[in-house]
């Protein structure tokens, strides 16, 4: 008897551990997210406090466009010197993102989001400490920071090719390597190339005699704020004057918003884990309640109230919730610390602040973990309270309840979910779209999960008949159909992850198919020069390539595009300058709706009809365009082109290019003459691009594949995210099977007594698992395809006209689901095989 009690306790422990696992994972990601962002946030805080430690006040030009400041003439320094309270000479400097060193592999050295500064060498002061060599003295000399020297393996004396904002590749001689105080190679992962001042001004600002900013020191006893105010008054409104502290705070808050992205991703992990976990917990408690029916009925017949029954189940949930959340919190702190360390290593040189546990992590983990567990246990608890006292006396207490109610509520819930989804996708919900879609997906999942028990029996029977050729297979099939609710919830948990993955896959493959279709039917450009953007500045190439490629034999026309973000009548807009508008119009078939698409004269522009309509512009109208540099231009609209699936937006004349943030082309489209050799021309263009390592030339379909491959990497990431959901679903299958094996101990004993071999017992359990997981996978594939197709249909207006189902992937998922079933069955089937025949028969 004692043995039986202990055994049931042990088996109970396993089931509690399994269902608690989902909560642990959820709580882990919640707390991990908070710990990570807190740690990184504090690390950046100290980074910026350090970076601006020696800056009391900084003067920059006014903001021309979002994030783009005007230059400061050298003469301003003299004006500042005259302001009372300024200590010594102000230090003007050039410090601009966009100096890209080309490494030994011929590729531009990248950072992970940190800026690639081009600076003027101002001697070994402030926080710059030479480690080797000296500062640049001649126009062809540079110094780099130690971080860059290490990543790119550069040594003093090397000839180093550098791409700058205003110049294509040019080679400089490396004469010095410097570090930062405290032996650090960089402040926070940024790379720095220091030129002599005139060179820095020319290649980074496009003009000598100007600076990006001027740093000012306050005299002793003058507060920074006071000095800031005095300088601001002295200089007037065309300059921005900020204290070092203000700058540090601004940088911090922009990093914070970047970090909140991390936070959202991790919270997304948590949400998926917990959503799927809810199914698992719900199932566990349902099974526990079913197994304790007689005991609970006995309690009821001895006089305990319904409330007490609910209470006894909920207390168990509370305990699981508390323990699992605490474990999750602990693991989350670890995960946060590990991720922070990884991040620090990634960024390279970010000095990590110590790990601390913010209150938000503790509260978040506990609230979410306990809340979800209690919520999931509520329904089984209420069901437990409805057990009539007579159930204690009946042999078979839980007859199959009819599925009508659950099916009706499932149908209603699904309808609501699909409605929300439709509203989100096809309605004009504006900013609420994302939330509507998320809510729609969530509610649909719950609805489908409620509908699953109804389809479980026939579908499971069908899947199971694949395995019915052997007795264990047949028994496994029968077992998997025995409790449609249990099978359904277990399968539904697997459905969620697979549906999301399949949905994303459908969208990606449809987008790819649509793009290829568009490309093949509408675009006549044969070759495309472009690069993958990995930093704030777009990858660019030498403008000379445009002219040279036009001269290549076999090339019919070339159109190069320069990109900038400007302001049209005060509103931010993408602006392109096109080297040859007629060529572009020919390649993308653009047709003039108004005016002409002939070659643009100075200060002329064309735009698409939608944009023209929004702005109320016509051929002949004039607008004011402010580009990243210089003064606003008055530009005349000479043509409006008809709506095109591939191309839209502003295109301006090439005389405006010098005011672009990067006055070098980012893209080019090349059309060949009929019957010319594509491969040969492509190779020639590639040779022309030898000095422009940030871009490459591809044919049309290669270009589309390249664009899609960016989507593919998003997809990979999502797959990793959702693998977690699937992992939890696997735990669910293990849990369900382990409980089923336990419940059927006597049957298993009987089967073994009449001659079922161990391997056959294992096969029986495995078939049950495989049937459940394939059922879940089928549901997921169907629901996911539905979701994906709905999204693609909603994107129809955007030119995504083709729906393509990723059959290969789907088959792979189905096969994987089978493997998942086999893996999930390992533990329970070993348990089933180990059952002691005699004990099983004597089992009470």
């Amino acid at each position, binding site marked *: 008897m004692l043995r039986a009690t202990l055994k049931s306790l042990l088996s109970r422990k396993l089931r509690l551990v399994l269902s608690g696992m989902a909560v642990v994972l959820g709580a882990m990601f919640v707390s991990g997210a908070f710990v990570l962002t807190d740690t990184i946030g504090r690390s950046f805080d100290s980074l910026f406090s350090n970076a601006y430690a020696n800056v009391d006040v900084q003067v920059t030009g006014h903001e021309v466009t979002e994030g783009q400041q005007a230059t400061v003439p050298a003469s301003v320094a003299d004006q500042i010197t005259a302001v009372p309270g300024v200590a010594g000479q102000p230090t003007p400097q050039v410090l601009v993102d966009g100096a890209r060193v080309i490494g030994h592999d011929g590729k531009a050295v990248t950072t992970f989001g940190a800026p690639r500064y081009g600076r003027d060498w101002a001697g070994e002061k402030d926080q710059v400490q030479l480690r080797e060599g000296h500062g640049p003295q001649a126009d062809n000399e540079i110094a780099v920071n130690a971080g860059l020297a290490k990543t790119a393996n550069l040594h003093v004396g090397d000839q180093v090719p550098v791409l700058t904002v205003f110049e294509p590749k040019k080679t400089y001689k490396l004469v010095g390597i410097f570090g930062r105080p405290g032996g650090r190679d960089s402040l926070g992962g940024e790379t720095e190339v220091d030129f002599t001042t005139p060179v820095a001004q020319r290649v980074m600002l496009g003009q000598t005699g100007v600076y990006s900013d001027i740093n000012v020191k306050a005299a002793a006893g003058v507060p920074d704020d006071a000095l800031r105010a005095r300088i601001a008054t002295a200089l007037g409104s065309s300059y921005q004057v900020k204290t070092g502290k203000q700058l540090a705070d601004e940088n911090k808050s922009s990093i914070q918003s970047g970090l909140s992205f991390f936070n959202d991703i991790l919270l997304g992990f948590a949400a998926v884990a917990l959503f799927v976990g809810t199914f698992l917990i719900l199932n566990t408690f349902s099974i526990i309640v079913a197994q304790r029916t007689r005991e609970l009925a006995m309690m009821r017949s001895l006089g305990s109230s319904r409330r007490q029954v609910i209470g006894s189940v909920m207390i168990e949930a509370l305990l699981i919730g508390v323990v699992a959340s605490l474990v999750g919190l602990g693991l989350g702190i670890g995960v946060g610390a590990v991720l922070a360390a990884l991040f620090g290593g990634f960024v390279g040189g970010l000095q990590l602040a110590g790990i601390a546990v913010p209150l938000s992590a503790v509260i978040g983990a506990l609230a979410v973990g306990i809340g979800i567990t209690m919520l999931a246990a509520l329904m089984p608890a209420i069901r437990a309270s409805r057990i009539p006292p007579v159930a204690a006396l009946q042999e078979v207490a839980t007859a199959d309840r009819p599925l009508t109610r659950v099916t009706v509520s499932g149908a209603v819930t699904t309808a609501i979910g699909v409605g929300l989804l439709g509203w989100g996708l096809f309605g004009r919900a504006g900013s609420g779209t994302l939330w509507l879609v998320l809510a729609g997906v969530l509610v649909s999942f719950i609805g489908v999960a409620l509908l699953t028990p109804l389809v479980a029996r026939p579908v499971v029977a069908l899947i199971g008949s694949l395995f019915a050729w052997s007795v264990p297979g047949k028994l496994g099939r029968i*077992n998997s159909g*025995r409790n449609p609710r249990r099978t359904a919830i277990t399968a539904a948990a697997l459905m969620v992850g697979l549906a999301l993955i399949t949905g994303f896959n459908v969208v990606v493959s449809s987008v790819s198919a649509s793009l290829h279709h568009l490309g093949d039917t509408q675009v006549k450009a044969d070759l495309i020069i472009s690069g993958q953007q990995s930093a704030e500045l777009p990858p660019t190439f030498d403008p000379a390539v445009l002219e040279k490629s036009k001269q290549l034999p076999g090339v019919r026309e070339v159109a190069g595009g320069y990109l900038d973000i400007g302001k049209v009548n005060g509103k931010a807009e993408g602006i392109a300058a096109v080297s040859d508008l007629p060529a572009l119009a020919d390649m993308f078939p653009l047709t003039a709706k108004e005016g002409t698409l002939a070659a643009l004269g100075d200060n002329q522009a064309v735009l698409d009809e939608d944009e023209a309509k929004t702005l109320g512009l016509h051929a002949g109208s004039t607008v004011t365009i402010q580009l990243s540099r210089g003064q606003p231009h008055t530009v005349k609209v000479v043509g409006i082109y008809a709506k095109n699936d591939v191309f839209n937006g502003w295109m301006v004349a090439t005389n405006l290019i010098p005011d672009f943030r990067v006055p070098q082309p980012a893209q080019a489209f090349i059309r060949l003459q009929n019957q010319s050799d594509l491969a040969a021309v492509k190779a020639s263009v590639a040779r022309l691009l030898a000095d422009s390592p940030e871009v490459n030339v591809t044919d049309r379909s290669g270009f589309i594949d390249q664009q899609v491959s960016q989507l593919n990497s998003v997809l990979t990431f999502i797959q990793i995210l959702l693998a977690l959901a699937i992992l939890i679903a696997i735990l669910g299958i293990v849990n369900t099977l382990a409980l089923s094996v336990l419940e059927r101990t*006597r*049957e298993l004993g009987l089967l073994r007594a*009449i*001659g*079922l*071999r*161990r391997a056959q017992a294992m096969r029986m359990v495995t078939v049950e698992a495989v049937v459940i997981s394939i059922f879940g996978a089928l549901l997921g594939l169907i629901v996911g395809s539905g979701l994906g197709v709905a999204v693609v249909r909603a994107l129809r207006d955007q030119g995504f006209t083709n729906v393509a189902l990723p059959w290969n992937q789907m088959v792979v998922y189905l096969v994987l689901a089978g493997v998942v079933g086999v893996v999930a069955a390992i533990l329970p089937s070993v348990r089933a095989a180990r059952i002691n025949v005699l004990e099983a*028969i004597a089992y009470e």
Partner: protein
Amino acid sequence: MTATTATTTRVAARASEVWKVYGSGEARVTALRGVSLELLRGQYTAVMGPSGSGKSTLMHCMAGLDAVTRGDVYIGQTRLTGLSDAGLTRLRRDQVGFVFQQFNLLPTLSAKENILLPLAIAGRKPDKPWYDTVIDTVGLRDRLSHRPSELSGGQQQRVACARALVSRPEVVFADEPTGNLDSRSGADILGFLRRSVTDFGQTVVMVTHDANAASYADRVIFLGDGRIVHEMAGPTPDAILDTLKKIDLSVGGE
């Protein structure tokens, strides 16, 4: 050994000097103390004795469900001691039939499927005439498609008996097969087991507490405290009751 070969052809199962000890130390229980027993082909044996005397243990050991501590057990020519789990499983499947007191059937399968289960597991086809004979003898033809939950306790036991016989095992072991039944249904089962011995030459061993039930058998073995204390051939209810009283006096004296 050659001397025994002649007899083994007549012996369906044999236990020699079988000891069975459960647990160790304080909790040590000796359930069987040197039991030797031969079950002859076509013989119907009843095993009786007070509760805890080792009847079920003896059945389990002889049927290959449990290992003996000392001694040897044979089913037909096969020595059970030292067989692997796979070997024992195959033996149970092919050469042994078992009827328990209750929970004999898989609730998910119909009566017919339950009956054919050992053959199905072995991947063997039933011998059609024999199958028909068994079904008709137990009188279940109109109930074959029913699930156990749709059958009465007596009918369920009859299905269990049919299952135990359908593979023509060397021996059928029945541990209190009528323990949960009223006397009418019990008599059906007993009559059926009797017929399978008389008409079809099966070998049956049955544990029972009921003197009337035991009187269906050809011989009765009396166990007391793990030993065979008496044996009786051609038993009558009265003779059995007398013997039981004597044993109770001698064993219950402790």
